[in-house]
């Protein structure tokens, strides 16, 4: 397996548009200021010489409105097409200009300038093209490179990206966050969490917004499933889906550590509801064992896994948990011969079947352990 990483920073538009001030808005701002001040001048002059019988100052009113409009339009254009909130900012500054006259126009332009440092959805496409490619060679892995050591070194290749983040510029850091999100594995989400501690507001706020989006997506899925369950309380499949969704969330890396116990118990309750509604589903028992293992209850997990394997001997997750328990027993007793006995016992069992070439989500270290023990010949 190989990983290639390339970061390209190049954009011809960067030379035209300053990253600090978008020149597209400048003519509109100038026009807005001129119109606004001239409108104010006309109105003041009229008040000085006029009387109550004077006609309504249409010309000054038109200029005043034009100034407000130009201010909003300038902000709208200056923020660029990739800023999703540009219409809102345009309207806001426009109304500001309309209500407060010349002071409002100046204030609106200042608001735009002062807000330039805030994070935006996709700043890269406008000012910088930075892309990180991570390619993984598919399935053509030499058998002898499938060991635990390789897994460790593979992780070591990814780690430096987080270490180098303080050195990367803001757009590159954001590109890395985007790439991690696309990959979406637990380790990637955990890295995004690390990026969220970056001292630069643009970077950490962007990382937090990505985590927030993913959490909202989960919450939305839970809500819609909960509604369906409310409408069809007898549907066992819905309960299974709810349990699986929570397990997925727990394994996603999104879960805050302080809430881990709460979510663990909540996931268990959904899982038990699903098991009671669908007692024949052995896979749910395997999920239960996996949840126990997540809390460090490995012997208990192995007990459950053994029961599940009696019903459904082909469940890989349960097999690996039994294996993990055997291994931990050997280590805790600190006897190498026990390890060999455990390995032999595992191999003699009917469930010692081929371990998949690629680690599946949720298998965790037990997968590496299985590869370490079985290899391809023994599997």
């Amino acid at each position, binding site marked *: 397996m190989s990983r290639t990483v390339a970061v390209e920073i190049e954009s011809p538009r960067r030379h035209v548009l300053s990253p600090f001030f978008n020149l597209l808005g400048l003519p509109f701002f100038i026009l807005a200021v001129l119109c606004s001040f001239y409108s104010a001048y006309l109105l003041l002059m009229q008040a000085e010489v006029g009387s109550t019988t004077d006609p309504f100052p249409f010309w000054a009113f038109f200029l005043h409105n034009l100034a407000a409009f130009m201010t909003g339009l300038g902000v709208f254009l200056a923020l660029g097409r990739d800023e999703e909130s540009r219409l809102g900012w345009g309207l806001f500054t426009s109304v500001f200009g309309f209500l407060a006259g010349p002071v409002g126009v100046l204030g609106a332009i200042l608001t735009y300038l002062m807000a330039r440092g805030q994070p935006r959805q996709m700043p890269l496409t406008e000012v910088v093209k930075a892309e990180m490619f991570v390619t993984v060679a598919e399935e053509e892995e030499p058998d002898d490179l499938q060991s635990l050591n390789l897994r460790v070194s593979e992780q070591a290749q990814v780690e430096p990206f987080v270490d180098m983040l303080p050195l990367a510029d803001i757009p590159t850091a954001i590109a890395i966050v985007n790439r991690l999100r696309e990959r979406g594995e637990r380790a990637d989400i955990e890295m995004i969490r690390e990026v969220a501690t970056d001292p630069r507001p643009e970077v950490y706020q962007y990382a937090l917004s990505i985590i927030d989006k993913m959490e909202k997506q989960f919450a939305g899925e839970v809500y819609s499933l909960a509604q369906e369950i409310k409408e069809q309380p007898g549907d066992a499949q819905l309960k299974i889906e709810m349990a699986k969704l929570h397990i997925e969330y727990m394994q996603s890396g999104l879960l805050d550590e302080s809430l881990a*116990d709460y979510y*663990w*118990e*909540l996931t*268990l*309750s*959904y*899982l*038990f*509801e*699903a*098991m*009671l509604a669908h*007692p024949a589903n052995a896979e749910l*028992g395997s999920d*239960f*064992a996996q949840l*126990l293992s997540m*809390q*460090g*209850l490995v012997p*208990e997990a192995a*007990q*459950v896994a*053994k*029961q*599940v394997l009696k019903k459904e001997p082909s469940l890989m997750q349960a097999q690996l948990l039994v294996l993990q328990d055997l291994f931990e027993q050997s280590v805790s007793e600190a006897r190498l011969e026990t390890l060999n006995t455990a390995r032999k016992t595992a191999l003699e069992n009917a469930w010692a079947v081929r371990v998949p070439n690629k680690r599946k989500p949720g298998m965790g270290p037990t997968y590496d352990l299985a590869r370490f023990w079985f290899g391809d010949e023994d599997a």
Partner: protein
Amino acid sequence: MSELGRSGSGRHLEVDISTVDNASVLRVTGAFVGKQVALFRRACFQAQADEAKHRIIDLSEVEEIDGYGMAALVGLLARRRREGGEVVLCGLNPDLRSVLEATNCDSIYRMAVSTSGALEYLKDGKE
């Protein structure tokens, strides 16, 4: 002995807490289901004040249990085991036992017929 109780929408749950030797005994009465399970969690939290290492859960007066009740029991087991304690269930009627079997929980709990049997197990096996 302290007692926590709550009733609502026709269903009722009570949890009595007492301490014997090195174990807190939580006697659960009523429907161990749904949101009422929060009461049991609160009782577990209160039992921590006794500083007893083990927990005995007397379920002889439990009329029914669902996934939420089971999750609370397993949650208690996880916390106790983390602190080197044990959880023993006692007084299970056939219905509860079948729920435990359906959820594969029967293999992870120590079970006794009565509270005294559970205390005996803790004395012999754990201390």
